[in-house]
C-alpha cells in the first residue's frame, strides 16, 4: 500500500474580517443598557467580542454572529434587528456565489470540511454542476470508510499517455518504450487565475502551496519570474515569448497552447527532453472536439480543455456547460477506443470540491482550478483589478508563507470532501471516477424518468 496521502492543515486567520451573510442592526437610541443581549441572550459572546476594526472601518460584530436571532427576540426594547448584508449579497457572481466565497474563506482559514447541522437549504437544482447528484452505495455495494482513515482511498492521478496495450517480442521481452508521466497525489492542477494582482508574493504563495501538496501550478512562460525558482511545483505554459530551451528542460512537464502545428512544437520539445510530458491547452468548446480527437489519435499526451470563468464554452452565448462538453468529448474518445491513451484535464468554473468530482465523473481525468486560489487569499471576486481599480484586500501584499498555508488548507478541505464523496460511492481510486456516469444522476434524466413519465413534456428547463 502506498504511503497515505495527507494534507497538513494549520489554522491561518484572515487578514481582513470576512464579510458575513447578515448584519446586526442595533439602535443605540433608546437602549436601556440592560445588557440582556450581552449577558443572557448571546450564546456566542458576540456582544463581548465585538471591536472596531480599522480595516473595514466598522464593527466586527457580524463576523461572530451565528444568526440565532436570540437577541432580536430578546431585546426588551426591540432595538435589535437582523438583515441580509448587502455587501455580502453583492460578492462574486453566479458561480462564485456569496455562499461559495464564504465557504472557501472558511476552508482556507481552517482547512476543515464545512460541516453544519440541519438539512440542505439551497435550491432543488440549478445550472451546470448543480444539475447532477452523485450516487451512493447501499447494502450490496460497500461504501468506503475513508475519511476517518479506516480504509485507504487514493486520489492519485497520472498525467501522460498510456499505451493501449503492451507488446512483447518472441522472448517475452517488453517492446514498449517507457512513456513519461507525471503523477499527482490529488486530481487538481493549479492554473493561472484569469484576473487578480499576481505579485511575486502571490505567485510564490501559489507555487509553494502547489509544491507542498505535490501538485503543479501552470504559469505562463513570460510570468515565470513571479513564481521564484520552483521547478518542482511549476509547469511553464509557452505563450509565444522567447524560450530558454536549457532552462525549460528543468521541468518534467510543459504546456503549449493549441495551434495548427502543435504536434511539431511537441516534437521539437520532445527532441530536447524525451521524458518531458507535454500538455496541449485549448478551449472547452464543442467545436474543438474533432481537434481533441485528432490530437489524441496523433499521440498527444495531455489535453487541457478550458471553459470560461463560469464553466461554460468560451465566447459562445448559448454555449454548453463544461459537464456537457466533457460528456461528449469523453464519449467520442470512447467510441474511437482511445480514451485510455490520453489524459483530459478540465478547467474553468471549478469553484468547489464537488465540482472536481463531478467534472471527473463526466469524463475528465483531473481538473485545474484558478479563481479559488485567489479566494483562498481572501479575494472577493469583485474584479476591480480587471479595470485597475484598488483591491479591497490588498492582494499583492499577501505574506507568501501564510498565503501558501491558506491555499494548502483549502486543498486539505477539498481533499477530504473528495474522500467523503468517493467513500459514499464506494470508489477507492480517483482514477476510476473518470467518466463513471453510471454513478451520477443527472437532473434531466431524473426529471424525464419520473415527472416526464407522469406529466409529459417539460415546458421550461
Amino acid at each position, binding site marked *: 500500500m502506498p504511503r497515505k496521502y495527507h494534507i497538513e492543515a494549520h489554522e491561518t486567520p484572515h487578514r481582513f474580517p470576512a464579510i458575513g451573510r447578515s448584519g446586526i442592526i442595533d439602535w443605540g437610541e433608546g437602549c436601556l443598557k440592560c445588557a440582556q443581549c450581552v449577558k443572557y441572550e448571546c450564546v456566542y459572546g458576540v456582544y463581548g467580542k465585538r471591536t472596531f476594526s480599522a480595516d473595514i472601518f466598522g464593527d466586527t460584530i457580524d463576523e461572530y454572529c451565528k444568526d440565532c*436571532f436570540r437577541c*432580536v427576540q430578546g431585546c426588551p426594547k426591540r432595538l435589535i434587528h437582523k438583515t441580509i448584508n448587502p455587501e455580502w449579497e453583492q460578492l462574486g457572481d453566479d458561480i462564485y456565489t456569496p455562499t461559495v466565497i464564504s465557504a472557501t474563506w472558511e476552508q482556507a482559514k481552517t482547512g476543515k470540511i464545512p460541516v453544519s447541522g440541519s438539512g440542505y437549504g439551497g435550491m432543488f437544482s440549478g445550472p451546470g454542476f448543480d444539475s447532477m*447528484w452523485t*450516487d451512493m452505495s447501499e447494502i450490496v455495494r460497500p461504501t468506503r470508510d475513508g475519511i476517518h482513515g479506516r480504509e485507504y482511498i487514493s486520489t492519485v492521478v497520472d498525467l501522460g499517455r498510456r499505451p493501449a496495450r503492451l507488446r512483447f517480442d518472441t522472448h517475452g521481452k517488453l517492446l514498449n518504450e517507457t512513456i513519461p508521466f507525471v503523477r499527482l497525489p490529488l486530481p487538481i492542477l493549479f492554473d493561472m487565475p484569469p484576473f487578480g494582482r499576481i505579485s511575486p508574493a502571490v505567485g510564490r504563495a501559489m507555487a509553494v502551496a502547489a509544491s507542498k501538496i505535490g501538485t503543479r501550478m501552470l504559469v505562463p512562460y513570460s510570468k515565470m519570474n513571479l513564481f521564484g525558482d520552483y521547478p518542482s511545483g511549476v509547469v511553464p505554459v509557452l505563450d509565444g515569448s522567447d524560450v530558454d530551451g536549457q532552462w525549460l528542460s528543468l521541468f518534467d512537464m510543459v504546456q503549449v497552447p493549441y495551434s495548427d502545428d502543435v504536434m511539431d512544437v511537441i516534437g521539437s520539445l520532445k527532441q530536447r527532453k524525451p521524458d518531458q510530458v507535454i500538455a496541449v491547452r485549448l478551449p472547452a468548446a464543442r467545436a474543438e472536439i474533432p481537434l481533441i480527437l485528432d490530437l489524441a489519435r496523433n499521440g498527444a499526451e495531455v489535453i487541457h480543455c478550458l471553459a470560461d470563468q463560469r464553466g461554460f464554452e468560451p465566447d459562445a452565448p448559448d454555449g454548453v456547460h463544461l459537464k456537457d462538453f466533457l460528456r461528449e468529448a469523453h464519449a467520442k474518445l470512447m467510441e474511437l477506443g482511445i480514451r485510455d491513451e490520453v489524459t483530459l484535464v478540465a478547467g474553468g468554473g471549478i469553484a468547489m470540491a464537488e465540482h472536481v468530482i463531478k467534472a471527473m465523473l463526466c469524463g475528465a481525468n483531473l481538473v485545474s482550478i484558478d479563481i479559488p486560489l485567489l479566494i483562498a487569499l481572501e479575494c472577493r471576486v469583485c474584479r476591480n483589478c480587471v479595470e485597475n481599480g484598488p483591491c479591497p484586500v490588498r492582494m499583492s501584499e499577501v505574506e507568501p508563507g501564510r498565503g501558501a498555508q491558506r491555499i494548502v488548507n483549502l486543498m486539505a478541505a477539498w481533499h477530504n470532501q473528495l474522500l467523503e464523496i468517493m467513500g*459514499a460511492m464506494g470508489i477507492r481510486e480517483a482514477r476510476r471516477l473518470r467518466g463513471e456516469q453510471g*454513478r451520477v444522476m443527472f437532473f434531466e434524466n431524473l426529471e424525464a424518468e*419520473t*415527472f416526464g413519465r407522469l406529466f409529459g413534456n417539460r415546458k421550461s428547463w
Partner: protein
Amino acid sequence: MAYKNIWSEVPPAAVANAVSRFKRGMGKYAVVISDACNDCLKCVAVCPEGVFRARGGKLVPPFDHLCLGVQCSRKSDRCVRNCPVHAISVGLNPSAEALGDKRWTADLLMSTWYMSETGKLPKHDLEYRVGASGGGFDKLRFLFPKRPPRSDLDPDQIDTSISLNRRADRRVKIDIPLPLYGGGMSFGSISQITMLSRVRAFAAWGSLTCTGEGGYPESLYPFDDHVITQVATGLFGVKEETVQRVKVVEFKYAQGAKPGLGGHLLGDKVTPAVARIRETVAGSSLFSPFPFHSVYSVEDHRKHIDWIKTINPMALVSVKVSTPTDVDMVAVGSYHAGAHIIHLDGSYGGTGAAPDVAKKNIAMPIEYAIPKVHAFLLEEGIRNEVTLIASGGIRTAYDVAKAIALGADGVVTGTSELVALECVRCHNCERGRGCARGIATTDQELVGLMDLEWGTQRIINMLHCWRDQLREILYRFGLDSIRRLVGRTDLLAHLDYNANVPDDDIRRPPE
C-alpha cells in the same frame, strides 16, 4: 390537585395556546408603539388577532407575530385608525428578510410557528404550503376540482390512518391515526426535553417517534409503545433489552443528509449523560462507521432482520435507506429480506451534523425516489405487502399529501417538529455548546430554555393543523381515506410541465 407526572404521562391530543418562549415571537410584520401611548387600551379592543394585550391596565409590548399586516392595520375599524394619539405604526419586520432559506422560507418558518403556537392555520398573509427551492414539492400542485365532488363526506370522519404492518405475518398490527411518525433524532444530537416533547406529542396522536442512533434513555420507558428504536452502524446503546421494549425496530442503513457516510456527533455534545447511554467516553467525538460491516449482501441484510425478529418476536422491522440510483432494487431486496416498512430518506433530509458537500450532492431528492420505488414494487406485485415511508424534506402537510400522492403510504418528519419548537434553521446544531435556542443541544444551561409541557404542546398543535389540512385536501378530492390517495399522481401537476394550474388556496382569493 392530584399529582400529575408529565414525565411519564401521555398527554391528550388537544390544542392549547403555546406562545413563544422568547420575549417576542417573530412574524412578517413589526408593530411599533411610540412613547405617545397613553394606555387607553383601545387597540386591545379593536384587534381580533390578539396583537395588543394589557397587563395591570398597561399595554405590554405587542405580539406582532400575530399581526396580519399593514393593510389590516389601516382598516377603519383596526388599530392604526383607532388609536387616539396615533402611537401605532405597522410595517414589515426587517428581520424577517434575514430569516430562512430556499427550502424553509421565512414564510414557512413563521407559518409553522403560528400553527404551533395557536393550533390554527395562519390567515392569508403567509405561504404555509411550499418553499422556494424551485423544484420537487415546491413545483408540484394539486389539481383540485372546482367543487368537492362528494357532498355526503363529513370532513371530520375522513380517515388519515395508515397501517405499518401489511404483511400477513403474526407480528403486531399497528395502525397510526396520522400518516406520519417522528424520524430518528438521537439523544445527544437533541436535548432530552426535545426528545421527550416529540415522543409525547406523537404519543398523544397515537403515533411513534424514533430514537435515532443514540441509544434508549430511561426517560423514554413510559412511552415504549410509541417508540421506534434504531439500530444504526455505530450500534450505540443497542441492547437486547432495548430491542425488546418496542414494537418497531428501525435499521438505519443510511441517512439522506449524508448518504454513504456515518453519523457525526462532535465531542462537545457528548456529555457524561450522552456517553453513558451510548456506552462511550464523554467529550470524544463519535463517528459511526459506514456501512454496516456485517452487511455486504442482501443475504447479510436478511440475517440482520432475522436477528431482530428473533430477539423480539412481535416487533415490526423498518429499513431506512437513502436514495441511490438503484433505490428500487434496494427496496425490493429489503422486502424479500423480511422488512415491514421501507423507509426512503431523500437527499435533502435533516441532520444534526453533516458535511455540506454531502447534504447538497449525494443521492437523489425524495420526489424522484418515491414514484420510482412505488412503481417497481407494483411491478413486482408486492406493493400491498410493504409500508412505504418517505422522508427527507417533508416540511408541511402539503408535502405529506404530495409524497403520498407520488406513491408513499406515509412519511417521517423531523425538522418540522424542531421548527415547531422555534428552530430558526441557523445550521449551528453541531458547534460548541450546540443550539442557541435550546433544541439541539446537551448544554445544561441551554437545555433549560425549554420546558417539556410547552414543547409537547407546540408539536401537538402543529400535528393538529396538519391533520386538518390533510382532511381538507382529501375532502376537496372526495376521498374518504388517505389510503386512497396513495400513488394518485393524476391528482398532481408540475408547474414546469403545466404552467396553467391555478394556485387555489381556499384561504386566499385566487391569483
